[in-house]
């Protein structure tokens, strides 16, 4: 085997490897949206985040506008603190009385945050807190409430 042919084939092998890595990084695991940290941050406190995970989408009217950056327990407010990053295209798109709710996509789908714009004139900026929040729907609690209200009616 000619050493030049060997080198060309090894180079080709490396190229396939880089293509595979690029595919794994961009298409399989969503590395592209991690890089776009140019957006602004919003904070929200939820009583219960349910199965929300960091990296979950943040959407408004069903359109994806950002993603959840981190979820930690805030011992001062006894609730979960969710950091979101919203794309820079949406600076000044959400009024102060925007509501953040945790929804589930489909019956068994992943959970995401839905933002519903309010009517105030003052807009949310970088690092501001979304004060109006609605927790995730926890099935056990829902069943408990139904049972409780039925036994109360009798």
């Amino acid at each position, binding site marked *: 085997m000619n050493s030049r042919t060997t080198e060309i084939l*090894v180079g080709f*092998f*490396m190229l396939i490897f880089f293509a595979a890595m690029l595919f794994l*990084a961009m*298409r399989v*695991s969503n*590395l592209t949206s991690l890089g776009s940290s140019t957006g602004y941050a919003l904070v929200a406190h939820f009583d219960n985040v349910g199965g929300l995970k960091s*990296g979950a989408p943040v959407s408004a009217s069903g359109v994806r506008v950002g993603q959840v950056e981190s979820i930690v327990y805030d011992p001062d407010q006894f609730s979960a603190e969710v950091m979101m990053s919203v794309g820079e295209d949406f600076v000044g798109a959400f009024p102060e009385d925007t509501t953040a709710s945790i929804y589930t996509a489909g019956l*068994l*789908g992943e959970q995401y945050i839905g933002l519903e714009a309010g009517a105030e004139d003052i807009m949310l900026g970088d690092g501001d807190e979304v004060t109006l929040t609605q927790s995730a729907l926890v099935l056990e609690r829902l069943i408990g409430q139904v049972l409780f209200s039925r036994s109360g009616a009798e």
Partner: protein
Amino acid sequence: MIDRVARFGRFWLDALERFGRAQLFLARSLGAMPSLIPRFPLLIQQLYASGVMTLSIILVSGLFVGMVLALQGYNLLQGFGAEAALGQAVALTLVRELGPVVTGLLFAGRAGSAMTAEIGLMKATEQLSGLEMMAVDPFKRVYAPRLFAGFLALPMLAAMFSAVGVLGGYLVGVEVLGVDAGAYWSNMQSSVAFVEDVCQGLIKALVFGLVVSWIAIFEGADCIPTSEGVSAATTRTVVYSSLSVLGLDFVLTAIMF
């Protein structure tokens, strides 16, 4: 009776001695690594022998494994009405487990056995003694390039295996079974993390690469220099490296995930 006990003890002592010899062999090969820098063409040659020559079998089996995963996953997920999670199931299985493990097994069968046979034959035809006679250290000239090439080639092959497998899953899941293409990709992207899943899968493959090529080279260098000896060493390479890949996979999974 005493004779039997003695034989039993001899068996374990021999096994232990061989294991120790393998460790020393690895240490000396790793010690010879810096000498690879001026001998770069040797590494290219070995990357060709262990990487490029294994490429076709990896790509074909990756495609079929991905296709089977999609088929089986679809049947299972359909029962819950969760076909949309197919992309996630296929990608996570491939990237975390099947990519590194199946690549390791195929690499042991394709490249590892070839390495053992080559080195064993070099020993049987006294080429290794010839090298030593010319004051060429076989660790620098023969073993270190092969070890390093295997260490590099296996993770690269594993990444290709996973990538092709995901495409195979797409082919069957989306094109044949009719899962929504958007759901396939978006579910995959939201559940597969680059550092936690892809990179840790590649770390597994790095470990497998080192272990498989270590076993292959040691078995070759340690074989009885006859035709039966070489064939027995080749068999041992495939058996030991397959077992180590599967065993190490469990240990690494328990540590990392």
